[in-house]
């Protein structure tokens, strides 16, 4: 199929027949220089900041630690370690509100900075390109690098998969299609060399020949900086793409950059590609070239309720409140506080929640920005959701099934293909919370599936138990029968013997 990104720019826009075009609200924040958040009094480092198993602590309460020191190790095949974001002392290992809409508590390590911000000794390899590809993966794994676009999938697992299935093209996601967010934009403008180096290291790690970097054309400065940095390396192609949400979604970016589709029952690797975010590539560069694990990241603090919105370098574990405070606090009571972007981000239950590896933005949005909180009206079948859906689904029909408590009906219409991008809710003139419906129905389906598996396994266990009981009864009966037969045989023998003796005696008697 056609790779839209290889066509002239004027054609690209009209060939992309999905998505929405929200106000991007990226400037002026994207044009302001990045500032560094001063070390807060305490850092809260969740043991689970990634997809997969939570990390296992390797330090004790009271231990002094250096910046970059391993605090908790990877605990499974899919997991990632957690490192100290600064030097100081571990003062507690406890639970703390997670950056999640529920605000439920999760295990964290509490780090009290000593203010020296002293790094551990590092010994990065002098020429990483001479290392075997798997060794790059090992370094990335040890550095705790996870997908920094928000997916937080352990990067080393992806690199290993890419190496194993021999993907051809590395897709680098510089789309940053979410409104407000500009941390990737800033990263590409400020350290394009680092990003390109990380891309080349990732290429080496997976053994692919070509990297395609998709950057939305609303970031001309980033495109220019990246083109300059990538000029000496023909294997890294910078490809401007139309600014159309959700361009930064893996599946859509793959389609636009390569013309390939990820099969519904497969992964990007099945289409011969692997996707990494620009932030992740930068983290790979830091890990391999400088030996520095992932302990800080760029976060966009923005939204109408923020006094001085800007991009901050924040240590992992600083709280949302720390970042808002540094940005002059909240000018007005926000209608919503979001971690991530406004289209897919999660509302926070409390600003006490910490920044984690996947935190790209912290937004305090006013009512005006969010739009009126209208009660959902009836669907007028305008099909705006159908035109907006980047997966070619029929959101209005799926919603009708879900409303009538039929998640299976929605499943047959492709519910599980829904990427949750929120385009349908964004355009719905009746303010129907479609993506909320779909999240709910996916949960309901998963719960159904779990209870089905459970009841199946109970059925299997019950059947096995019955069979065992029958077998035991049978064996018992057989044993009893055998014993009885043996007893009777013995009795018969004894009787026969007695008979024989009697007969003998009789014979003897007779002979006598």
């Amino acid at each position, binding site marked *: 199929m056609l790779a839209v990104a290889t066509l002239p720019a004027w054609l690209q826009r009209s060939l992309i027949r999905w998505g*929405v075009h*929200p106000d991007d609200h990226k400037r002026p924040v994207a044009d302001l220089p990045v500032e560094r958040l001063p070390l807060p009094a305490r850092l809260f480092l969740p043991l689970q900041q990634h997809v997969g198993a939570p990390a296992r602590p390797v330090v004790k309460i009271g231990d002094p630690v250096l910046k970059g020191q391993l605090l908790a190790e990877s605990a499974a095949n899919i997991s990632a370690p957690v490192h100290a974001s600064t030097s100081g002392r571990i003062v507690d290992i406890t639970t703390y509100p997670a950056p999640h809409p529920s605000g439920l508590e999760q295990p964290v390590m509490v780090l009290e900075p000593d203010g020296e911000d002293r790094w551990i000794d590092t010994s990065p390899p002098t020429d990483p390109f001479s290392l075997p590809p798997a060794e790059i993966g090992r370094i990335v794994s040890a550095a705790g690098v996870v997908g920094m676009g928000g997916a937080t999938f352990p990067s080393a697992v992806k690199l290993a998969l890419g190496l194993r299935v021999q993907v051809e093209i590395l897709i680098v996601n510089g789309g940053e299609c979410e409104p407000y967010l500009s941390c990737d934009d800033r990263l590409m403008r400020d350290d394009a060399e680092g990003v390109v180096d990380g891309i080349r290291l990732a290429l080496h790690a997976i053994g692919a020949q070509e990297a395609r970097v998709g950057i939305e054309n609303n970031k001309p400065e980033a495109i220019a900086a990246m083109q300059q940095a990538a000029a000496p390396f023909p294997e890294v192609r910078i490809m401007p793409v139309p600014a159309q949400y959700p361009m930064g979604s893996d*599946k859509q970016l793959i389609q636009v950059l390569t013309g390939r*589709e*990820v*099969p*519904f029952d497969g992964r990007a690797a099945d289409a011969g590609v692997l996707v990494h975010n620009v932030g992740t590539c930068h983290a790979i560069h830091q890990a391999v070239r400088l030996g520095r694990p992932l302990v800080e990241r760029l976060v966009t603090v923005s939204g109408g309720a923020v006094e001085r919105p800007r991009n901050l370098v924040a240590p992992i574990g600083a709280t949302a*409140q720390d970042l808002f405070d540094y940005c002059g606090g*909240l000018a007005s009571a*926000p209608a*919503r*506080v979001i971690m991530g972007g*406004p*289209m*897919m*981000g*999660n*509302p*926070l*239950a*409390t*600003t*006490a929640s910490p920044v984690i590896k996947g935190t790209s933005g912290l*937004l305090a*949005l006013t009512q005006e*920005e*969010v*739009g009126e*909180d*209208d009660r959902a*009206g*009836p*669907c*007028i*079948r*305008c*099909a*705006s959701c*159908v*035109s907006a859906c980047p*997966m*070619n*689904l*029929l959101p209005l*029909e799926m919603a009708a099934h879900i409303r009538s408590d039929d998640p299976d009906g929605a499943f*047959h*219409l*492709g519910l599980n*293909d829904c990427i*949750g991008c*929120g385009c349908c*809710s*964004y*355009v719905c*003139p*009746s*303010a129907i*919370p479609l*993506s909320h419906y779909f*999240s709910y129905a996916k949960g309901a389906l998963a719960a159904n599936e779990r209870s089905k598996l459970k009841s199946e396994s109970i059925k299997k266990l019950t059947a096995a138990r019955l069979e065992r009981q029958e077998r035991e009864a049978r064996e018992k009966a057989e044993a009893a029968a055998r014993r009885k037969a043996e007893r009777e045989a013995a009795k018969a023998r004894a009787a026969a013997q007695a008979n024989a003796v009697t007969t003998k005696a009789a014979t003897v008697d007779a002979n006598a």
Partner: protein
Amino acid sequence: MSTLPHPNHAPHAHSGVKVSRIMATVMLALTPATLFGFTLFGWPSILLWLVTVGACLVLEVACLRLAGRGGPKTLWDGSALLAGWLLAMTLPPFAPWWIGVLGAVATIVVAKHAYGGLGQNPFNPAMVGRVALLISFPLPMTTWVQPAPLFAAGSPSLIDSLHIIFSGTAVPDALTSATLLGHVKTEATRGVDALHAVMSLGADGSGLGWHAGSLGETGSLLVLAGGLFLLARRIITWHIPTSLLAGLALPAAIGHAVAPELYLSAGAHLTAGAAMLGAFFIATDLVTSPATSAGRLIFGFGCGLLTWVIRTFAGFPEGLAFAVLLMNAGVPLIDRYTRPRIYGHGQPAKAG
């Protein structure tokens, strides 16, 4: 630590487009053709329009109250106003008041609220209203008048108009006339062929024509302009108008080429009757048309083709309302079999 508002699901942004805004845009697009109709047919048409739209609004409020879903917001989504407006566009401009009221009953009560209100109706409400009237009251529904512009000599004054609309005073004979399609149909029964019928009416069905008809059919070009405006504002897509006009024009052009004395030309079909109004405002009704692009093409073509068949072979001179209602009935089926291929799947989602 500050307390935050109750968390809502993403997205935390909205395009700002609302149902009421969509309806308002459609009404804006209808305005030029309506105003042209008003000037063409004068006070009676204005009074009838007011009666029809007013009756629709009153009935909407009553139905919402009955359903326990009252409240000004539901009323001001504008859907009842628009349905009434569209119905009024299809009525003979000098029809008596009760035509408007009974049409409103069929439109709002029968076609819309009996099914559960906005978004639930399978059939186009305004067309249900028109068809119910046409079948029940053929005479007032086919009594057309020549244009009698506001304030022109010979046109009814406001007082005369009140009499015409409200007390059943007969329309002055001098004013009655026939629509192009009606005239051709009548002449055909007398053995006059289509070519001569068109000539004897002295009209060629021109869009901004000075000829008899409803508000919606006299200003075809203005209706077309309104439709293009809707396209530009992305309220409707090109699929239904294009395929409807093609479905009407193709058979007409073939027929006319083969036997011009039997079949009207494609041009006459496209500019006469409710073709333009139907293509841009009626068949494109969001609630009662398919949701997929392919479905819309099928739906539009079917509407156009059926319109031509009814106009040409059936007893009624104009068939668009019937055509749209027939195709409305097929929408669930069309939607089911035109599901788009989902990203990453080889085949479209199974019908079921």
